[in-house]
């Protein structure tokens, strides 16, 4: 038995400084996977562009799965993709980002918003208020994003970091340097294919989803008063059957004049996916975007 009564204090004196140094390093050398670069790229382009009148917002499903470029080529509207991973981690981050990207004067000119979120199938809608838009923890939490052991492990195993890029002119996700292990023959991952093929989703609990929808609707009404909004339930593989009460919920929540709902067709095969069940590859994106275009055209949004 250790008799030294001060051993705890001594241990703290040795290990807490190590912890604080690590905390600082962790914050300033945080791996954002290219998110801050995406924000910069988009902001620079939008600042010089006066014609944008339609935006795509949502999470990674929209980033991977909807192409502003394709919609621009099919219509007279000028779309721009402002979707962000995990819907900006929380709605406050995301609203702040959208408002900074589309300054208020431009916001008045936006007449169409495509809002595609996986929240319809998530339990519950994801909002982590401890993190910034790249997923980095607030400094005041005094907790690192990854543990010291994780950092050591990653350093010694040379783990590859994912890096996301977007096209400046459309904000669309660029697949050129990104591996799609579900469909790209060079990187096929059989285990992942099996897993994703069998992955299932549930419809989100209606209460939290309704709260999330309300929050977004207040935001739209305040900052995009002239805009029509199309709520897109994204294409995923193996979507759950949408029950009559869930369908009613969706239509009831978007029954106002300016709102509309599009429930997209399921993704039929993993060959249209990139690396997860709701991230299409370039081919899958084309299919999803075409379906959205048809909907917009049929319902006279364009």
């Amino acid at each position: 038995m250790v008799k030294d009564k001060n051993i705890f204090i001594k241990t703290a004196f040795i290990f807490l400084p190590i912890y604080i140094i690590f905390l600082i390093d962790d914050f300033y050398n945080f791996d954002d996977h290219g998110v801050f670069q995406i924000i910069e790229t988009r902001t620079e382009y939008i600042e010089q562009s006066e014609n944008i009148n339609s935006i795509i917002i949502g999470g990674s499903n929209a980033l991977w799965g909807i192409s502003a470029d394709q919609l621009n080529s099919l219509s007279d509207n000028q779309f721009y993709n402002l979707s962000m991973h995990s819907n900006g981690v929380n709605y406050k981050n995301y609203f702040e980002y959208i408002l900074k990207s589309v300054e208020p004067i431009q916001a008045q000119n936006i007449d169409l918003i495509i809002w595609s979120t996986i929240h319809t199938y998530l339990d519950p809608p994801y909002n982590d208020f401890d993190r910034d838009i790249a997923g980095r923890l607030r400094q005041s939490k005094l907790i690192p994003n990854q543990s010291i052991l994780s950092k050591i492990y990653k350093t010694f195993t040379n783990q590859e970091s994912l890096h996301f890029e977007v096209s400046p002119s459309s904000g669309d996700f660029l697949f050129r340097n990104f591996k799609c292990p579900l469909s790209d023959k060079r990187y096929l991952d059989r285990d992942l294919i099996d897993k994703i093929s069998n992955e299932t989703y549930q419809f989100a609990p209606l209460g939290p989803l309704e709260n999330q929808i309300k929050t977004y609707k207040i935001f739209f009404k305040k900052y995009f008063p002239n805009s029509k909004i199309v709520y897109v339930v994204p294409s995923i593989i193996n979507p759950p059957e949408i029950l009559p009460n869930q369908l009613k919920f969706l239509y009831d929540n978007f029954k106002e004049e300016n709102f509309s709902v599009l429930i997209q067709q399921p993704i039929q095969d993993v060959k249209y996916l990139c690396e997860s069940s709701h991230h299409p590859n370039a081919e899958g994106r084309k299919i999803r975007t075409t379906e959205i275009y048809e909907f917009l055209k049929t319902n006279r949004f364009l």
Partner: protein
Amino acid sequence: MKNNLIFTLVPYFISVIIFIALNFYNSGTLGDELDFLFKILSPLFLALSFFVIYQAIARFNILRNTFSYGLFFLISIFSFFGLASNINGSHAETSNIFIYGLSFYSALLAFKVHQKSLKFSDLFISSNPLLLISGPISVFFSKVSFGLKKRINYFFPFIFIGFFFFKVISAPMTYYLNMVSFTEPLAILLFAFLFRVFLYFNFAGISLMIYGIFGILGRRIPLNFTQPFSSRNVIEFWRSWHATLSIVLRELFFLPSKKKFNNTYLSIFIVYLASAMWHGMSINFILWGLFHASIFVLTSYILKKGLKILPIVIFLFAIPFGDIMFTDTNIPRLLTKLSNFLSIDFYLGLNMGSFLVAILETPKYVLASTFVGLSIISVEFFGMKNKFVAKRNYKFLRTNLSLSMMLIVMVLLISGQGWEYAAYGQR
């Protein structure tokens, strides 16, 4: 009267300040909607309303008793109408701010009303914001007689251990909650086991922190967990798991029903059904309650026969098996899970698919926390002959050496991965 009031009011106000500070730490702001103000005021307002009703009916035994049961089941009624969450491991905070913390303060008020001992000063215990985070149901609230320095020396380790349990072990283990959708028997059992481990470090972690904070403030509240995995049978386990709920259940259900029916076993079933309904109004909790009541009765019978090993075996099997029911409010899926245990494949072919995938895919930070958690549970379970473990008040973790080791492990493992919330709280 005045002394009693000051005795509860002072810790109440200090708790409010700590609660606001915690809110600020968690959200980074004081909140756009001033949620925390409602979280503080609504329990106090409702508790005051219940106190006024109690004053009016205190003399009438039937009315008072009915009122106490009504208070206890208030959370069940709200749960039945979908206004309060059921406990399922995920964040159970109610979305209705006006009934924040109801399950805890209504249980305490029910206890006090039933005992005919509810005083005005108790309102500041029942609605104390720190006690509403995750309990305990403060069935007693007494003075710690020693001075501040000694109190810090004694109670600080509880706060540290609680934080370690909660942040280093349970937060990363929230990863496992996704496994609730698995339906293969081995994967179901694995999930049920890991769920109980997660729940222990989450619930006990917060309870220990609150216990330590109140201790330093000079108030002794019940120790809600007394090393439940040091138990040797389910009866002991439930006495040392969420111990204050057991005290309330005993007062409100066991003693009166025993007196009325003179049948211990029937009283046990009544207690477990009441407990099930407190956790949530869903068929899975009723099944869980009936299952554990049966196991309790069986264990009691076996213990009377003098057998010692069999209750341990039943204990090790019954807790995870019960949790299969406890964790899944999706009834069709739960029935699939239970019927899979009757499948011959389970006993012959052993389909290990999702079991192996679950293990292989688990991130390393989660595995590391799980390992630490299981190590502590192992010490609790196997170390009962050690004098520090045998005390069942976490003495084995409160030694300088243990605290130093935990500090090192904490520095190495702590991260922002995983979710921080009170699995049992704020509903």
